[in-house]
């Protein structure tokens, strides 16, 4: 645990250190601690560009991992995660409607930046909530959880198709900004946006820790959880709400970032050999931060001129790990 905290701090500093403009490490520390007089251009780069990007990586990593952990417990499925179940797509639909949909009717949201930032979060949250509620409704009718997973994938496809229609009718400039958004982009997050999402995410993460006991109980199955005093319906709604907030808020600004939400909870379980969410939740937060900071560092490494889309990196890291997990312990079909 301690190692992970130290490594996340190191990765955080490395992430700020690396970029297309080379700034000495000492100057960066000076800028961050606001001591000494450094070049103004460096200050702007560090404070307005790299710092929010690194913070976004930290927040995204933590939020997506916890969201994935809770979805895997709720759906009793190890492949559940914000990306695969179509929840990111739902958030994407919300964003698409917000970015492009409104402009079709002649309303341009981009002109009100304050409203724009909040609206984006709200629509993204509503989009992911919509998908989660449909999935939950499906769980009530379909007892087989595998079917629910397939439904999630179908739902994701339908939404993508729907987004495609919106794209077809939208203007070039908005289309481009939306396409950029779908690639996942941590550097597009502004300081103002960080200020909006930090309190929301922090509170939700604390909330997720508070439901650890219920999550543990839910591992025994719905019936046992109920006979042991858990209000199952209320619990399911709580988890849906938490995961929708975590996924929706993050996705609003950073775009859909794949696979982090699936692999990190598995890494947490493998490292800790426990099914106790009181441990798994903080562990997922730390691991998520590490993995996404690492991905972000990789994305700027190969070429100092450009930045690779974070989504490509997370897939490159994530998919081999998933495959490795499948081969290593054939029990991937089982949560816990």
């Amino acid at each position, binding site marked *: 645990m301690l190692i992970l905290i130290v490594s996340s701090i190191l990765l955080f500093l490395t992430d700020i250190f690396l970029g297309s403009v080379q700034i000495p490490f000492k100057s960066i520390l000076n800028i961050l601690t606001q001591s000494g007089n450094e070049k103004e251009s460096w200050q702007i780069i560090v404070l307005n560009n790299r710092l929010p990007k690194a913070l976004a990586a930290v927040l995204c990593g933590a939020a997506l991992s916890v969201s994935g952990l809770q979805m895997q417990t709720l759906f009793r499925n190890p492949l559940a995660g914000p990306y695969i179940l179509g929840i990111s797509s739902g958030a994407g639909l919300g964003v698409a409607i917000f970015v492009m949909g409104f402009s079709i009717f002649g309303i341009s949201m981009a002109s009100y930046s304050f409203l724009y930032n909040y609206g984006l979060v709200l629509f993204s949250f509503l989009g992911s909530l919509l998908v989660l509620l449909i999935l939950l409704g499906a769980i009530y009718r379909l007892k087989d959880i595998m079917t629910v997973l397939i439904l999630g994938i179908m739902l994701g496809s339908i939404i993508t198709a729907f987004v495609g229609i919106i794209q077809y009718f939208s203007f070039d400039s908005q289309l481009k900004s939306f396409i950029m958004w779908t690639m996942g982009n941590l550097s597009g997050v502004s300081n103002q946006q960080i200020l909006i999402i930090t309190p929301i995410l922090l509170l939700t993460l604390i909330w997720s820790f508070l439901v650890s006991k219920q999550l543990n109980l839910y*591992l*025994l*199955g719905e019936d046992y959880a109920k*006979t*042991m005093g858990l209000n199952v319906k209320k619990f399911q709604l709580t988890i849906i709400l938490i995961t929708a907030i975590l996924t929706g808020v993050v996705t609003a600004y950073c775009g859909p970032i794949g696979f982090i939400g699936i692999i990190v909870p598995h890494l947490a379980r493998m490292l800790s050999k426990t*099914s106790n969410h009181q441990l798994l939740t903080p562990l997922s937060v730390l691991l998520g931060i590490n993995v996404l900071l690492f991905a972000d560092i990789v994305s700027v490494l190969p070429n100092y001129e450009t930045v690779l889309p974070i989504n490509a990196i997370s897939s490159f890291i994530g998919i081999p790990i998933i495959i490795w997990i499948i081969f290593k312990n054939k029990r991937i079909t*089982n949560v816990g």
Partner: protein
Amino acid sequence: MKELITISKLTIGYQKCAIVKDISAVVMPNELICLIGRNGQGKSTLIKTLCKLLPPISGNVTINSNNLFNLSDNEFSKLISVVLTSKINIYNTSVKEFVAYGRYPHTNWIGKLTETDQGLINNAIELCGINHLVNRDFSSLSDGEKQKVNIARAIAQHTPIIILDEPTAHLDLVNNIEIFKLLKELTQTHQKTILFSTHHIESAIRMADQLWVVENGIFYANTPKQLVDQNIINQLFCNSGISFNNQTMIFDYNH
């Protein structure tokens, strides 16, 4: 002594389709009750209804004069602990941790185990004779071992009533008798009231204080002796080549 559970005119089933009608019975504290009947007659349905996992079609059940169906999930969990037939797939959880699940309804928000909790957990482990398993991973146990651990969990929940759905279903003869003896002991020396369904009718007749029988949508409740004398046990398997011998209290195969 005051009755603990009173069932009056309870009709159970799925979606308005009644399976067993007009169930009435009274349970006194510290009774061992066996629920018997052939497959598909509604044993599990009755168990599920009493565990509040299935809403009743009509009728009423009171426990300590409180309406069972008005209890909150939390109140229920402190009154009745339940062992079901559904498989539990949980990984990275030791047997000890699993038994500790029984304390969940009683612990604080973070699930901290007090000394009392630890005592009750160890006690349950002792009672079920699973001391040698405590450090094993729950998922690595055999079906019989899992069943015993799950019963230990229910005992650790420390409720006056325990309801079990076919607790001996996957067990061999030795385990089977051990479970029967354990359940009997719990009612005799640990002030528990236990209801469980079983297919081991001969053992049930020997051990139970009260037998509940579901047969063709009709419910009978009485002492084993009365039911045998009324020929109800014998009727269970009529037309099947098996008959119950009221004198030897065992089943005979007709040739």
